[in-house]
């Protein structure tokens, strides 16, 4: 598998987010062409500056913090949950060109483009007949 979903990873507390928050797994769709793999992830409420995408040892980690809305002062009438932290990991095979990964966040949806390496991209070899 070129991009493998890692199940139920748990984020570690960090200097920026020492407080333990509810961890949510963003829903993802994945697409593949001979040239690239595309991942779409729903991360509503995550601003670009609160999204960290980390790649080390072939593991791609998405971590997005959701800031609670500027809560009106006072009591909460009803709150379904802490909007929490979106967290998900993927293991990338050698077939992905790790230098050329691109990410774009729009309307709470992250789009990751993971191009395949030249050697992993199928190539037609022309046969010359002189």
């Amino acid at each position, binding site marked *: 598998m070129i991009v493998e979903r890692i*199940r139920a990873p748990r984020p570690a507390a960090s200097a920026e987010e020492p407080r333990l928050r509810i961890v949510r797994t963003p*829903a*993802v769709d994945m697409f593949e062409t001979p040239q690239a793999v*595309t991942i779409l992830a729903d991360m*509503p*409420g995550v601003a670009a500056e609160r999204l960290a995408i980390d790649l080390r040892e072939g593991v791609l980690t998405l971590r997005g913090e959701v800031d609670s809305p500027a809560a*009106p002062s006072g009591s909460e*009438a009803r709150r379904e949950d802490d909007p929490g932290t979106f967290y998900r990991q993927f293991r990338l095979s050698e077939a992905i060109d790790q230098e050329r990964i691109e990410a774009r966040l729009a*309307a709470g949806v992250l789009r990751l483009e993971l191009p395949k390496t030249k050697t992993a991209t199928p190539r037609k070899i022309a046969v010359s007949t002189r």
Partner: protein
Amino acid sequence: MTSLIPWRRSSERALRDPATFPLAQLRWDFDRVFDRFFGGFGIDEPGLDFSSADVRMDVTEDDERILVRAEVPGIEAKDLDITLTGDVLTLSGEKRDERSAQDGDRTWSERRFGSFRRSIPLSCAVDPDSVTAEYANGVLTVALVKAEGVRPRRIEVKGA
């Protein structure tokens, strides 16, 4: 969590709308508690229709205002519809599949598409002219100002 009972058959769709079937909300709440507790058994949820129950909403309020926050990622502002009828706020909209031709074949699917509708009763009357809505980062925030008559008033106690 993938439902054990095939609730999502289209003929049973109405059962999932809290407006027509109040237990839908309860059932969804159970699912959420179950998911949180068991972590969904590590089962990846397959792609299912986007329904009312998938729209996560928070309602907060103070003396002056009620704030409604709804998570609707990937929806264009023009595809969102907000109506206020008395003290019931209804959000509806449609999430479109943003796959483009050059994305190729879908190899994994968890995100949901389609239309949703969710109504929530507000805790008190609001001023219908004061409603504002904002969409940012896939989150819709609706702010409603409480009607004059229902805002708490501070009453001073006079000393003798």
